[in-house]
């Protein structure tokens, strides 16, 4: 917080300060504090506290295993069905939580935005970080499942951080778009629950994407979460699951585009946030 003491700061109409990224670094502790606040606040006055972060994905997993694995008897590709489901529930819940949290984050912090300056990017980013912490906590279930079923993941599990990074980028990319749009058009407040609800069924959460007919798979991969979920399964379950590479790269490309345009659009509109929020 001391390096910019004697730097001249110039504020002008339409000027995108080169300072922005330096400011972002200067305010790095705010990422931590805002995420910390969100996590603290979320579980204040709850009896079982952060256990909620574990219970919700666990119940989702149980229901999906029963419906898709036991009742519909969909193929699992060799792995125990709960592991198949949970390796998808994990990234999906992360994405879904991050999306709904980020898109409302700016409006929820309207008083901050209209009264204090700091790089606005911090607000949606720390919402994603909050969701990421929950993601890590619910990861415990996956470990428990692996031990319970005495299922040994292959070497591919070391590539998991790469897929986590893609999930992160997808969440931030979509989140920034929706957050910025939501400031101006509150319609998005109503659209997001729909995206999350539909997304659960059009993404391969309860089933393996291998049951999608081959000719539709490329089209199916237009959903960026398809690539992420397939990647997670490929890394965790290994062996029997094969990844549909053209689809995966299409998903990856989309995530990169979303991420870059998300930041671009957010930066473009953030200067007017204080005026329109």
């Amino acid at each position: 917080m001391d390096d910019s003491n004697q730097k001249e700061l110039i504020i002008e109409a339409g000027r995108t300060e080169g300072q922005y990224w330096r400011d972002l670094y200067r305010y790095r502790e705010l990422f931590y504090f805002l995420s910390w606040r969100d996590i603290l606040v979320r579980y204040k006055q709850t009896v079982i506290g952060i256990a909620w972060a574990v219970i919700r994905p666990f119940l989702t997993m149980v229901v999906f295993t029963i419906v898709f694995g036991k009742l519909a008897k969909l193929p699992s590709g060799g792995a125990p069905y709960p592991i198949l489901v949970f390796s998808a529930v994990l990234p999906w819940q992360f994405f879904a939580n991050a999306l709904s949290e980020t898109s409302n984050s700016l409006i929820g912090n309207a008083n901050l935005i209209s009264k204090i300056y700091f790089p606005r990017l911090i607000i949606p980013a720390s919402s994603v970080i909050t969701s990421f912490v929950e993601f890590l906590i619910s990861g415990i279930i996956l470990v428990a499942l692996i031990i319970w079923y005495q299922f040994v993941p292959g070497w591919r599990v070391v590539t998991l951080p790469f897929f986590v990074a893609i999930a992160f980028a997808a969440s931030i990319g979509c989140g920034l778009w929706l957050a910025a749009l939501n400031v101006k058009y509150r319609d998005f407040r109503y659209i997001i629950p729909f995206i999350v609800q539909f997304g659960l069924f059009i993404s391969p959460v309860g089933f393996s994407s291998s049951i999608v007919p081959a000719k539709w798979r490329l089209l199916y991969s237009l959903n960026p979460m398809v690539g992420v979920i397939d990647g997670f399964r490929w890394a965790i379950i290994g062996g029997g699951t094969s990844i549909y590479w053209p689809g995966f790269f299409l998903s990856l490309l989309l995530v990169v585009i979303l991420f870059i345009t998300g930041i671009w659009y957010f930066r473009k509109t953030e200067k007017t946030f204080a005026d329109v929020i």
Partner: protein
Amino acid sequence: MSETVIRVENLGKKYLIRHQQRERYTALRDVLANKFKSFGKRLISLQPHSSNLQPSREEFWALKDVSFEVKQGDHVGIIGRNGAGKTTLLKLLSRITEPIAGRIVIKGRVASLLEVGTGFHPELTGRENIFLNGAILGMSKAEIHRKFDEIVDFAETSRFLDTPVKRYSSGMYVRLAFAVAAHLEPEILLVDEVLAVGDVAFQKKCLGKMEKIGKEGRTVLFVSHNMGAIQSLCKRCLLIQKGNLVQDDSTQAVVEAYLDDSKASSVLSRCQQENGNPTIVSGTLEQKRGEVIFKLSIVSHEAKNVSIDLRLGDKLGNPVGFGSLGALDPAHMIRLSPGATIVSFSMATSNLASGVYLVSLDVTFPDVEFYDRLDRCFSFELIRAPSKGARRVVSQNWGYGAVEIPLTLIHTDQMNWI
């Protein structure tokens, strides 16, 4: 001796205001609907450029062509009426919004205090909020750790550190919030009207803290309606009116100019009553130093003696007092002749607290009949300089009412303990 730390050149900020009061935000459906409408219109009329001007919108310059410089260590007061653009100026300086025109060059770390307690979360405890609020205001974690005890001492809330602030009394809340803000150590501090909080003792403490900050050689820009505070903190002052910087001079000169200007009178005009009773058809209110001048035009069909009663209310409409020409002493009744009579009279304001007042006027025949009643027909904002030697002016915001009661010391007697 010192260098320029803030240079503002031709600064301007424009807002679009919508006259039709709809929701505060744009809804996508409106944007889409308008796009379709204009597209449809273009198809029908085949005009290549049908004007996109919406009559319901109007440009509003919140600030226009403002230029000034501030040297390091200066304390500059900014005064002006509500809505003159003071807060907009601070928002531009602190980068909360972007200017439309002009430029600002700033050297040094800026902290702005537009409101105390921004970012306080009601669910978090006092301790947690100190850290959160500190970080939001731009302090580092180490800095907050270092000043933690000092902050708690200043706020006088050490017993409630681990209580969620939603259970705090509003006074405690504000004290804690201000304590965090007061321990910021920026090179440039921008302060909006934040001292109008807490009880009087705490206000005094805050003013003391501000003075101390000033003595440490930091640059302070200070917006306030409290002329006493401005005069004790700042040597130089900017006067902003309707978005323009109209005066930049010594505090004494600017405050005087401002007070003289406060005459911005409110005007009244109405039709005559149908029942033919005497009616106040027009009137003006003009604020002068120490008094308010009313000028009324009363129309009557016949010659009549009436009394003119004035009911004064504070900004909430609570009664403050009553004054009359004629109701108390019939000798002072006003003689109306057929046609219009102009009546002008003054009301002394030297005992009133600063703040907004609502004026109601009645034309009556005392104890017998009301001819005309005008409820809250005028309002004015009383702004006073402290009287000689005084540092502050009683304000309605204190919550002690709207009248300053003069106290006169008779004598003091020292009884020394042996």
